């Protein structure tokens, strides 16, 4: 008896018990769907993070008050550290030999007014000179802020295109006076649009000089300093130089830990790997449990099926079915059942990934590997959990089976 015959018999049996078959498959459906969804999310995140890191550049590091903090306790400790100031940035700019650029940065979110209009939730950035390189801003109209704007704590700003469009629809923004908090700033430039990332607009910001920011937005005590090195090879040297300078300025004795933080793209990448690795393990665990439960349910239903069809098995044997024919029949039936669950699960998982990808900023990428994995997993569940019932069916004694009521 060939596979086509067995599949035909299996499909007939499944159709004969539609509701039962569906209920039987729930575990497999959930298991496969969650595996597909998780793989799709992690895949999407991977792509996003890779893009982002290439974007940020691998030869940039950040000095700030906190560094990379993953616990509440460390956070409370870090609160007590001295603030990073624009003067620290100046010292680093002067002292770090391997730095190409040292840019101070801080930010807050505020409402911006122009006459009767206003825009809410604008990311107000205090940036030192050179910010356009670190943040990758290109000027569309006017000019960027420069050294002098910073030194003189000028009330000047560069707007993101979204803010400019909202405040000055159809008008030239350059030279207009806008209000941020208590102060009035002159618009000196507008950047080109960058679009959205993770569903967040990257064009809804206003840049003011970092010293202006420090002067008027004092609640943002500590700043961060972005340092771009000459090239990637210079990164560790530049980090060491920056540490030495800051430790010197802060009179930290040798052997005592830093009271400031330095993070690189690698720090984030490592954290990201740990995070997604964790998510992956947990979800694969959940999916495995669902699949095992699904498998047990399939085994149970196949045992019921074998019992119900004992007489059929007897008849088939009397008519010449060998053990292997019966074994194949029930294995194919279990596998067809679980594979059907797998296919529904794949559709559900892919659908879930696409829906979440569409309505939330989380990116989701469906990949062929996940689908192949889903098919393979559900087939294996069917074969593994179908074996025992199929084996019982195959070794039934034809006389006993025929006599079964």
């Amino acid at each position, binding site marked *: *008896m060939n596979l086509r*015959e067995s599949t035909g018999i299996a499909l007939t*049996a499944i159709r004969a018990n539609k509701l039962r078959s569906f209920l039987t498959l729930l575990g497999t459906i959930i298991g496969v769907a969650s595996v597909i969804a998780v793989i799709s999310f992690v895949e999407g995140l991977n792509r996003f993070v890779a893009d982002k890191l290439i974007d940020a550049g691998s030869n940039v590091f950040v000095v700030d008050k906190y560094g990379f903090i993953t616990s509440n306790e460390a956070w409370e400790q870090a609160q007590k550290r001295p603030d990073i100031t624009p003067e620290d940035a100046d010292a680093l700019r002067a002292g770090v030999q391997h730095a190409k650029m040292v840019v101070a940065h801080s930010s807050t979110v505020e409402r911006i007014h122009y006459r009767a209009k206003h825009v809410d939730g604008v990311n107000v950035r205090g940036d030192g000179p050179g910010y356009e390189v670190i943040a990758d801003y290109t000027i569309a109209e006017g000019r960027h802020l420069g050294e002098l704007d910073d030194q003189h704590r000028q009330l000047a700003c560069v707007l993101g295109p979204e803010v400019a469009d909202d405040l000055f629809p159809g008008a030239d923004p350059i030279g207009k006076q806008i209000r941020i908090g208590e102060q009035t700033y002159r618009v000196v430039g507008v950047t080109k649009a960058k679009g959205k990332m993770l569903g967040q607009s990257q064009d809804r910001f206003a840049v003011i000089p970092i010293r202006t920011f420090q002067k008027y937005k004092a609640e943002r005590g500590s700043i961060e300093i972005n340092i771009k090195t000459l090239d990637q090879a210079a990164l560790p040297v530049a980090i060491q130089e920056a540490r030495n300078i800051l430790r010197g300025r802060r009179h930290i004795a040798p052997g005592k830990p830093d009271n400031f933080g330095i993070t690189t793209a690698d720090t984030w990448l490592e954290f990201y790997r740990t995070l997604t690795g964790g998510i992956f393990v947990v979800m694969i665990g959940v999916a495995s449990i669902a699949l095992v439960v699904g498998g047990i349910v399939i085994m149970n239903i196949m045992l019921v099926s074998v019992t119900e069809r004992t007489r059929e098995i007897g008849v088939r044997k009397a*008519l*010449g079915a*060998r*053990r292997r024919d019966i074994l194949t029949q029930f294995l194919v039936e279990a596998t067809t059942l679980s594979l059907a669950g797998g296919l529904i699960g794949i559709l559900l998982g892919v659908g879930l990934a696409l829906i979440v990808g569409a309505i939330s900023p989380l990116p989701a990428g469906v990949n062929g590997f996940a689908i192949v994995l889903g098919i393979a997993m559900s087939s294996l569940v069917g074969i593994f959990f179908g074996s025992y019932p199929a084996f019982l069916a195959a070794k039934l004694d034809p006389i006993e089976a025929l006599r079964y009521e």
Partner: protein
Amino acid sequence: MLIAIRDLHRIYQVGTEEVHALNGVDLDIATNEYVAIMGPSGSGKSTLMNLLGCLDTPTSGSYRLKDHEIGSMSDDELARIRNQEIGFVFQTFNLLARADAIHNVELPLVYAGVKHEERRKRAREALELVGLGDRMKHKPNELSGGQRQRVAIARALVNRPSIILADEPTGNLDTTTGEEIMSAFERIWQQGNTVIVVTHEPDIAQHANRVVRMRDGKIESDTVNERRAARTGHA
């Protein structure tokens, strides 16, 4: 000789007790015989039928079917013999409920590895032979008892076996329908098939031209059915 049975024993172990279901049976059946095996329950006729049908193997003794020694066969070899040499007709029909008539008849050919087209053709011929050419797509629950049994007969015939082995084939049918089925066996026998009917009803046994009576695991008598032999000219 189609069937040659020598000193056949079949002992079952029931708990600690040994039950001698067959206790030294000798029986020869030639091609195109029509044999009825009779006997009260417990006489060993069911055991003999299971052995004849290659569903079971003897504890000792020899059963040769077309020069195959059945006693020494593996499960799969027995399945092969059942498929090729035996056509079963059961008291309870034993059709697959979910399959239509033609699919039921096809089953032995499926296990014989016959290709789909050929299978359909032979199953259709077999159904036409039992007068059910117009019921091929009917499921068992859409057929009467007599029709079901005729489907079962078509199934028994389809792979052209050496023996048609019927176990109480009219046991679940009324008298009239029973007679119809017995005349179907008559035709099959006349076409050159070997028919063995196991029954406890003398009326049914009267259709055969040889009657073997069992008692206590042994053959009590083995007689030519004179009345019938005279009527049909066969012996």
